[in-house]
């Protein structure tokens, strides 16, 4: 799992970390029992405030995505299939939300955005079919 943050994004940095970890879990990129980097490590790596990373980790723990083992660190928790699907949907939702925000910022109308999404989805399906 490779995390990266975009500080100038309107989404707070801690929320970016949370959603990326969730996405990694949903996509199976990380599995139950995998260790997350320590707060210090991740803060240094991303060059963000350790408090921000700690906040993200607290959030992840609260949501039951990770658990903390004292003195060992933070690990990905076990998750059932239904929860995984829900996570995947939530991650997708967040992605779309971000995209739509950006599109509106560009001055596109709702209809234009929808049309573009549809075109893009069709293109993606085509590419998948070709594989």
């Amino acid at each position: 799992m490779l995390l990266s943050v975009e500080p100038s994004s309107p989404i707070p940095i801690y929320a970016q970390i949370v959603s990326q970890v969730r996405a990694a879990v949903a996509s199976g990129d990380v599995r139950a029992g995998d260790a997350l980097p320590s707060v210090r490590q991740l803060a240094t790596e991303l060059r963000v405030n350790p408090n921000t990373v700690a906040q993200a980790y607290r959030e992840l723990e609260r949501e039951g995505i990770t658990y903390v083992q004292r003195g060992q660190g933070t690990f990905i928790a076990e998750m059932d299939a239904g929860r995984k699907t829900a996570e995947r949907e939530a991650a997708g939702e967040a992605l779309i939300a971000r995209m739509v925000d950006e599109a509106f910022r560009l001055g596109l109308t709702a209809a234009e955005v929808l049309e573009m999404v549809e075109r893009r989805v069709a293109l993606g399906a085509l590419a998948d079919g070709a594989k």
Partner: protein
Amino acid sequence: MPHALLTRGLARRMAPDFAVRDLSLTVPTGAVYGLLGPNGAGKTTTLRLILDLLRPDAGEVEILGVNARRYPAEARRRIGYVPERLGIPGWMTVARALRHHAVFFPSWSRPYAEELLLRMELPADRRVRHLSKGQAGKLALLLALAHRPSLLILDEPTDGLDPVARRDFTELLLEYVADTGATALISSHLVHELERVADWIGVIDRGSLVVETPLEAFRRSIKRLRVGTGTPLPGADGLPFDVLARVQRPREELWSVRGWEPAMGAVLAERGVEVRGVVDLDLEDCYVELLRGRGDPEEGR
């Protein structure tokens, strides 16, 4: 102790047309506090007043629970200060500078200083005046960290450093903060620099504190609205938020507003104002809009 640093009513007249006025900073313990402001806004002066390098004309300073106006040396012992430019006499070698500093700080940790020296790849026997800018910046950080302070005060620490040195510097700083939970007060006019690391923001302009708030709250409160111009628009008075700037565009206006909350859309709709969109801003946008809303700096002179 909820606050690592408090100033109350800090003031100092520097020149006939420049003064720091009634400055009250509140830096929560454990925060990375970004002190933002244009060049010449009084950031450096403020930090020097806090450290008692300049004597304030009025006001109080409390550092880590110590009355710093009365016991400045005591307060400085627990502060790591990275000045704008490295002040160490140029004739000293790096190793000599370390020994010199160690004399003044009882909590100086030699093993830690040596570890940092190695990690920063600083040439111990080179004279300070012959160091590159990046090396000088790192040495300044080393001298600020080696006595394990609880509060770091950094004055434009990475200004003029190349990207590699800047990254190294930030990493070392964040590591220290993560390890010790120390508080950091960082001044900068480079907003992007602070966007990653700060969780509190203070904006200073023309010697006064304009805003002091958690970074996220700052970004939440300043928005750009797209307002339709189909109906006559009300004046800025009586709106539930501050309008910092208005820009005319064909068929709509862009309002930069401060104090925005989502519920205000309904209030505006009642008055016949059509809000077509609320655009989030990044920190730099927020900062620029805020200062623009305060008018041209030259006007007040």
